[in-house]
């Protein structure tokens, strides 16, 4: 049972996220990033630019339909496009989104009629609909983009699966946009990876398209370009709906904002799936840890766990991808674990997988004066499941002789390894994070080598 399973780890393909071209999908929740269509527009790649053109053409075709009196068809296409569960982007905890209603879709389609700018030449960036219709935000923009680009994304997924050896199976994919018919259709028999929990197909999205917020976004417009004084003399009372109404009558302001954003396209970069702490912040976290007393005085245990929870994923990236921090209660004692995906990025990690079956690596954080026998037993019990038989105790001081001997005995009797990282080791990891002379992960390897030398 993996913690926060990812598709690749589930299939035993242990690669770091940093080395892959797509965002690795999780089975039980969405990836908190969004496709920004502007990333395709600004891309130097002809393929991405062409995909943006197709996307915009597909969206503007809705306006064409409306003009030709086929408003209902336009609405049904837009409703179908408004959710794309297969890609799993956004903030849903269930990988299941909700489509927009017909009324909302109609409101969007009306823009083609109501605003002469769009009626005459259509949209250049369809994300501009955020400026006129309430309830349209980054997740919707992302889903509409993915829906219209689904055919390409399916090909991209098939290609990546073949390259990495990810198992696929015949799947039915709903709402694939057919550019010849300008309509959505279901396609059967497409070989895609599936979510083992619900057998639904998964589609990958290139990392280079992902951002936390679209480059052209309502919040940015409101802060940078919206003439707030003109809309309301009391800025505190300015409501989003008033701004949207104003925009409909003053679309020149929106047009000007979009042109400005196009001009500054070089500043638009994709957001990483994981951001490391800057070096100064890492050092500050360590200073904080160093000053904390052991025990629970003034919530020192919580502060210790929080600081390490921020520090360790950054120190170990990209060799170990951070999976999750999870809290458990074991006989009244709160225990915080950090779980990492083992990426097999070097020989040491490979050894952990081969010798201990560690597809994920568990770290247990203990802000105690000294590690006692029961702490080791707790971690040992946790290692017995499919997480693997290698665990790390992160604590303040080196293990005392009897406790260290207990970890040795675990190896002798059951071939399980428990290694302790202390403040000194964390300090060295932070030094290495700064100097880049060696990988901070090598500190864990050093501790493991020392431990193994002590084993019989």
């Amino acid at each position: 049972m993996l913690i926060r399973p990812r598709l690749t780890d589930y299939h035993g393909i242990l690669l770091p996220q940093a080395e892959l071209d797509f965002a690795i999908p999780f089975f039980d929740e969405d990836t908190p990033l969004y496709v920004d269509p502007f990333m395709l527009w600004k891309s130097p790649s002809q393929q991405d630019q062409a995909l943006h053109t197709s996307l915009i053409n597909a969206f503007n075709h809705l306006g064409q339909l409306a003009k030709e009196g086929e408003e209902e068809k336009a609405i049904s296409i837009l409703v179908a496009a408004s959710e794309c569960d297969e890609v799993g982007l956004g903030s849903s905890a269930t990988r299941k989104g909700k489509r927009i209603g017909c009324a909302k879709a109609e409101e969007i389609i009306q823009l083609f009629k109501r605003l002469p700018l769009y009626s005459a030449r259509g949209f250049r960036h369809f994300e501009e609909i955020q400026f006129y219709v309430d309830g349209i935000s980054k997740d919707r923009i992302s889903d509409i983009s993915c829906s219209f680009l689904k055919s390409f994304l399916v090909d991209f997924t098939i290609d990546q699966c073949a390259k990495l050896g990810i198992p696929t199976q015949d799947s039915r994919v709903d709402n694939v946009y057919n550019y010849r018919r300008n309509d959505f259709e279901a396609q059967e028999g497409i070989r895609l990876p599936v979510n083992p929990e619900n057998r639904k197909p998964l589609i990958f999205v290139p990392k280079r398209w992902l951002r936390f917020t679209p480059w052209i976004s309502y919040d940015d417009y409101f802060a940078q370009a919206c003439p707030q004084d003109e809309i309301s003399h009391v800025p505190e009372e300015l409501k989003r709906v008033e701004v949207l109404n104003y925009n409909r009558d003053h679309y020149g302001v929106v047009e000007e904002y979009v042109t400005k954003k196009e001009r500054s396209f070089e500043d638009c970069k994709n957001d990483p799936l994981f951001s490391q702490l800057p070096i100064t912040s890492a050092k500050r976290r360590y200073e904080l840890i160093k000053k904390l007393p052991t025990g629970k005085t003034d919530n020192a245990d919580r502060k210790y766990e929080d600081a390490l929870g921020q520090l360790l994923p950054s120190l170990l990236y990209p060799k170990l991808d951070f999976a999750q921090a999870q809290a458990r209660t074991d006989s009244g004692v709160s225990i915080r674990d950090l779980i990492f995906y083992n990426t097999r990025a070097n020989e040491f990690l490979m050894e952990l997988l081969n010798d201990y079956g560690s597809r994920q690596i568990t770290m247990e954080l203990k802000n105690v004066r000294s590690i006692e026998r029961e702490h080791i037993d707790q971690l040992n019990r946790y290692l017995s499941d499919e997480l693997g038989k290698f665990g790390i105790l992160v604590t303040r001081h080196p293990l005392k002789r009897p406790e260290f001997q207990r970890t040795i005995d675990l190896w002798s009797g059951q071939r399980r390894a428990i290694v302790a990282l202390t403040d000194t080791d964390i300090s060295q990891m932070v030094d290495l994070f700064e100097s880049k002379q060696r990988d901070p992960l090598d500190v864990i390897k050093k501790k493991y080598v020392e431990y193994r030398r002590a084993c019989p």
Partner: protein
Amino acid sequence: MKTKEDIEAFERMMGQLEGLYNEISQLAKKSPNDAVNAFKLKFVNRVLSTANLILDASYRPFVEFSEFNSDDLPTNSDVTMMLTQYMEQSERFRSDNVIYDGGWKYILDGESSDVGAAQPSRIGRNR
């Protein structure tokens, strides 16, 4: 030492030890806890293995140490400490292998040679 080549090898090794010491002791002052990278460590180990060949057992600083293991993640201060030990012992070895003979000369095969040497700094000044 038996031949002039031995003297040359010894002096080259001394020079390299000093060079490495100067380099890494600077780093150790700045960040003693920081690890020496794999590239530097490879060359430190190469010089130490030459030193181990030249210095016989009575001059080896520690019997149980021959070179650094990269897995042990030696720090700048670890490497500086060991280089200092090797430099001290190399100088003791040199001091025992020079003689005053109208100037300081290396001893080759038990005899004073024509190869000039610097004044010994540790012991044997009165030789």
